[in-house]
């Protein structure tokens, strides 16, 4: 049976048998680049369609249903439309920064894929500071957004970028604290170690109530960090038209749009890895028969289903909560989430030191 976890070692050994070391390295790099680009394109197509279908389902309407069976080719048609649009630079814009911004956002979204464990023994680079790397790199993406908003020389764009910047940097602290609480429980920053520590149960269940609080804080914080409703102040359609990408059109707009969805995937993948056990199957205590059946499901399917469940939850938020005002949004973070997450982190430290978790 072909499983994702065996593919990387299979490719490596079969290449090493025939070729020299440098050419193997170059070939593997090419394979990784192609795989990453394919993943990007596929994720974009799937997530946009999923977003529209989920919204339609929640609002009891049909959603896209004309292009292809049940509308599954709708996003492909949309992409074609975006490619055929003219991308031009507005007269008053800062041309260099205007053109640079989509690249910054895209490169950061792409680099963030590196430490994610998609299946057992299957990560592009399982580096020993995995979650720290994620926290560090994801905070750079705000520069791309500010760059886009500033360079457009449009008042809507500037306001959208400023709001987005304030929001992303604020909620990053809570997200970081939630990540830290799992690091405290595990004692390692490496993604593979964190997943391995959950072989006898996910941290969401093992860590008692504080882990649950950390999980809820993480979900709230990443919803805000990815500028999703109810925290979509950055591009509140009724106030700021398009937010920081008001002036962007055609392919450059498509890149921002794609990076946004990829970021949702990445934060949900990290959430699934930290709290829901990554690619670990679901086990119940000593119930051997049940555990055996669960083990039979490939690890990549476990990982993807957990990630897509979290993505679904974030899409669900959008149609459940009304949009916040900017001052309410910042108040929620600084007056409630930050003190709670700090206190929660100390609580988890106590639990980890005393060994009160399972």
């Amino acid at each position, binding site marked *: 049976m072909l499983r994702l976890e065996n593919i990387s070692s299979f490719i490596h050994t079969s290449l090493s048998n025939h070729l020299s070391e440098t050419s193997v390295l170059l070939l*593997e*790099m090419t394979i*990784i*680049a*192609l795989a*990453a*680009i394919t993943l990007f394109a596929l994720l974009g197509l799937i997530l946009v369609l999923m977003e529209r279908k989920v919204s339609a389902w929640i609002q009891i309407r049909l959603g896209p249903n004309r292009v292809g069976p049940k509308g599954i080719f709708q996003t492909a048609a949309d992409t074609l439309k*975006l*490619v*055929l*649009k*003219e*991308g031009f*630079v*507005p007269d*008053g814009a800062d041309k260099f920064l205007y053109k640079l911004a989509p*690249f910054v956002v*895209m*490169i950061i*979204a*792409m*680099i963030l*894929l590196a430490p994610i464990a998609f299946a057992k023994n299957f990560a592009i*680079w399982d580096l020993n500071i995995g979650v720290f790397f994620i*926290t560090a790199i994801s*905070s750079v993406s705000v520069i791309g957004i500010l760059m886009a908003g500033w360079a457009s*020389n*449009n*008042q*809507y*764009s*500037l*306001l959208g970028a*400023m709001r987005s910047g*304030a929001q992303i*940097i*604020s909620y990053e*602290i809570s997200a970081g*604290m939630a990540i*830290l609480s799992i*690091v*405290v429980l595990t*004692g390692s920053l490496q993604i593979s170690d964190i997943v391995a520590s959950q072989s006898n149960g996910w941290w969401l269940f093992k860590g008692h109530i504080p882990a649950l609080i950390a999980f809820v804080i993480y979900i709230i914080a990443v919803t805000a960090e990815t500028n999703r409703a109810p925290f979509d102040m950055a591009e509140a359609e009724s106030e700021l*038209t398009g937010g920081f990408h*008001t*002036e962007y059109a*055609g*392919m450059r707009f*498509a*890149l921002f749009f794609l990076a946004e969805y990829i970021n949702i995937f990445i934060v949900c993948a990290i959430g699934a890895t930290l709290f829901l056990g990554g690619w670990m199957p679901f086990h119940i205590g000593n119930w051997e028969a049940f555990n055996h059946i669960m083990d039979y499901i490939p690890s990549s399917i476990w990982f993807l289903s957990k990630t897509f469940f979290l993505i679904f939850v974030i899409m669900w938020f959008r149609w459940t909560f009304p949009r916040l005002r900017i*001052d309410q949004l*910042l108040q929620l973070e*600084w*007056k409630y989430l930050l003190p709670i997450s*700090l206190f929660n982190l*100390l609580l988890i*430290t*106590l639990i*980890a*030191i005393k060994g009160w978790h399972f």
Partner: protein
Amino acid sequence: MGSGSLVTLMLAALVFSAGGIAVSKFLTKGSTNLQKGQPYECGVPAAGSAWKQFNVGYYLFALIFLIFEVEMVFMFPWAVAVKQVGMLALIEILLFVFILFLGFLYAHKKGALKWM
């Protein structure tokens, strides 16, 4: 794969973005008129440039953020070592968080967290 994978991913993102923009440029035909390059402002002529003063509140939040972000960077190595150090780690981090929290309370008292 080692650190080379990061370079690979960067190049992949560059090729993907630049390729997309190049294909779109190749396929589309541009047209120009007087209004096209104007910044979008719901149909009326734009009221001045966007490059001017903005609310100082954003700046204040960024400043407070800086304190806590640096705190978090300090806490990552601490979090890895907690289990080996034991109770002493908790006491030390309590002191650390307490001092930072005083600063946070000061900022709060001064009204830095209030949106005008």
